[in-house]
């Protein structure tokens, strides 16, 4: 599964970021790296909420990414 970051930027300085496809705790490290790069560019992203995805959310993402199974005819 590809590692994906989706950022939704609202009109009132609020930014929602969704991290998908990161193994283990890697998404938190990546969020930290991203925040450091943003800060260098002059953007200070102050965390408001951090919500780990539920197992069902992760399962849905994995299902969506999984290739469709091939149908085999049994004669």
């Amino acid at each position, binding site marked *: 599964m590809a590692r994906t970051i989706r950022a939704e930027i609202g009109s009132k300085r609020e930014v929602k970021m969704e991290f998908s496809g990161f193994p283990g705790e890697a998404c938190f490290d990546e969020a930290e790296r991203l925040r450091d790069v943003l800060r260098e560019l*002059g953007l200070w992203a102050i965390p408001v909420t951090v919500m780990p995805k539920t197992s069902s959310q992760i399962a849905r993402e994995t299902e969506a990414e999984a290739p469709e199974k091939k149908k085999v005819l049994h004669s």
Partner: protein
Amino acid sequence: MSHISSYHADIKLQTALEQGKSVEQDPGWDILNEAVWACAEEKNLDVGHSIRDYYGRLIYCDWSLSGPAFDRGIGINVNRDTGDVVFICDSYGGYERIAGEIKEKVIQNYIALCVARALSTLNYEVEVEEVKHPVDGKKVLVKGVL
């Protein structure tokens, strides 16, 4: 594991200042310039370096945005000592709404440009999309895939 987080964003151009350089050499300076011009294009405004107050007095600034329906204009200044970004406008007489809209648009553009550039720096393939939201107004979606 993966997660969803929300942030409040603030602009402060400190990278160059921390390296003993002038704020004009900050990477955020060019991004702010780009954000201002993008706002001007979207809202059909002119970019300049001065605004006027209620009495018609000229006030110089790093960037200004003004137009036929908003001839006083809104100014943007970057503090040379702290890197703080300050919006200035004499909104007396019913200009609060338009000044607020322009300010928020410049900031939204700045955030979107920063996120896209940061993801690109981290080697992500980046896509940017604008969507209209019925309640929250326009949102910018930035997607990075590694």
